[in-house]
């Protein structure tokens, strides 16, 4: 409730920021502590196995593995914070990678139009998602599931396999790095900072929290809730488009299955929730999501280094996600409402 009042009076920024930070601190701290703990456990396990854990190679691997999921998850964070969710990101990523690679066609000169086209198409998909949810009053789950089926049909109809070609210069986005930090991770960090700024320093950010907290109250307080929901869906889809560009750069071509193979739809939602953002909306933030994505990536790395069957990884992942959310739910009860 306090949050809402602040949302309407952005003049008192300092206080608002302190309040918000206090609100977000809890689950974010938990997820980063868990991350530290996991790194320590991983270190011990890998050392017992007679290997070294945090080598240059594995650190770079963790960052590269998490960059695409990280970017999608940040978009998903915005949608979930506003009380919505987006199941269409996986197919949109495939579509974006294909559009990018087809327009680039191996020519350096086509990079700019290709990137522009991908961003435009993603924004359009987000706009459709948002308008179906707000204008046609369709539950976000069904609306984005329907849109994902539409994209799946188009992509599968036009392509059976990898298509297009990404020029060398653009492939650098996927692979090159400056020191120990890959360019893809910097892109992820850039998106995260923009989203953090949006959420904690702008009116739109406050409105997103307000709409996610209680849509009816937000509407009665004069927020155009429909507009906020459309905007978060556009932003979420644009993030998926950026992830598609990144994956096209990494593969050197567009692929119709790159989004679904990565399971980016449910996985991004899992990462957001692992980061302490409430699935019902209104609580959480970008920092937690970054922690959640890193946690999943470190888990992957430990399993790879110990050469454990990848199916075991899914089991552990499922258990970790449920336990994490159970812990957040428990903490929630202790706090006076």
């Amino acid at each position, binding site marked *: 409730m306090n949050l809402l009042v602040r949302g309407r009076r952005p003049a008192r920024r300092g206080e608002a920021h302190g309040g918000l930070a206090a609100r977000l601190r809890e689950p974010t701290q938990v997820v980063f502590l868990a991350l530290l703990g996991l790194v320590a456990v991983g270190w011990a396990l890998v050392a017992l196995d007679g290997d070294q854990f945090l080598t240059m190679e594995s650190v770079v691997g963790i960052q590269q593995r998490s960059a695409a999921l990280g970017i999608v998850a940040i978009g998903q964070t915005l949608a979930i914070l506003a*009380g919505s969710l987006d199941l269409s990101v996986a197919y949109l990523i495939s579509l974006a990678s294909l559009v990018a690679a087809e327009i680039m066609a191996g020519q350096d000169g086509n990079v700019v139009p290709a990137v522009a086209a991908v961003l435009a198409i993603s924004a359009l998909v987000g706009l459709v998602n948002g308008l179906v949810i707000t204008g046609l009053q369709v539950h976000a789950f069904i609306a984005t599931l*329907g849109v994902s089926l539409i994209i799946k*049909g188009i992509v599968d109809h036009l392509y059976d396999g990898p298509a297009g070609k990404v020029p060398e210069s653009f492939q650098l986005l996927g692979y090159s790095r400056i020191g120990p930090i890959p360019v893809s991770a910097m892109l992820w960090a850039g998106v995260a900072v923009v989203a953090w700024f949006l959420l904690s320093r702008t009116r739109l950010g406050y409105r997103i929290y307000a709409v996610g907290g209680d849509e009816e109250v937000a509407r009665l307080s004069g927020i155009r809730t429909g507009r906020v929901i459309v905007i978060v869906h556009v932003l979420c889809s644009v993030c998926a488009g950026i992830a598609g560009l990144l994956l096209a750069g990494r593969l050197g071509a567009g692929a119709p299955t790159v989004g679904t193979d990565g399971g980016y739809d449910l996985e991004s939602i899992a990462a957001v929730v692992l980061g302490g953002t409430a699935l019902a909306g209104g609580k959480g933030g970008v920092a937690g999501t970054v922690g959640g994505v890193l946690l999943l990536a470190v888990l992957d790395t430990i399993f790879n280094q110990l050469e454990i069957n990848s199916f075991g990884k899914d089991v552990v992942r499922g258990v970790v996600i*449920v336990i994490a959310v159970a812990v957040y739910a428990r903490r929630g*009860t202790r706090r006076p409402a």
Partner: protein
Amino acid sequence: MRRALPILAVLMVLLAAIAVVNPFFLEPAGFLAFLKRAAPLVILAAGQYFVIVSGEFDLSVGSLVTAEVVIAARLIDGDESATAPVLALLIVVGLLVGLVNGVVTTKLRVPSFIVTLGMLLVLSGAVFLWTGGAPRGALSQGFRMFGRGGLGLLPWSVLILLAVGAVAIWLMRADFGKTLIATGDNVRAAALSGVRVDRAKIFAFMFSGLAAAVAAILLGGFAGVSAQAGQGLEFSAITAVVLGGVVLGGGRGSVLAAMAGAFTLEALFTLLNLYGISGALEFTVQGVIIIAAVAAGAIRLPRKFTPRRGDAHAAS
């Protein structure tokens, strides 16, 4: 029954359209073949209905179906005498998965979307960890009979479907159904009026698990063993339920309408095939129709509050 009327009307139109293109559909054999193909999804939709009307989601049914089929193939391994105990085991596994989903959702207060998403990962990981990455073994003839065989002209799957449908409708008319709908409509009000809401939700999840086990038995017999046996079924089942006019978030809709929604979805697939819409574009048409159908439902009932949240826990 009144609630099921719109979707039944749509279903009739679709069935008539199929019959126009394919007159064989009007003969008993043709229609029974359609019912047989639709049976697993209709049963899953009935199970999913219980969960959705109580205000929750079950995303784990698809991987539960896959897991059940793979477990059956590995344990039976062509041995006829193992059929009966394995069938019993599959039912128990289905109930157990539902129990875990329900208990974690209600007692640990984790949103069911996340619980069942975790269960999806655990089930698909665990079953292939056990079989080493690919399904192994084979189903026995006795097991496959349920999915493909029949009693004279009537396929077993249609009889099972009728039984499941009858039980589901009876349950929703009994006290249990009323408490379940009250729980989905307003958890707090239901709890204050003496409904044991946790128990109602746990039962709902157990019915969904049971439905997945039955669907897996039928699908395993009908389509055989594969690692993709249940792929995407969770979304199909939820779509079917919503097509039937059941509101995500709980408290509204009838189980008959949910099952009619599953028939409608299956009739839609059949019709698209008949009109020769190529395999992939079928999804596009499906997506448009789902959105349009749900939007039409929302517009027809403008006064009804449609929660737009990811999960019913928003209410608490």
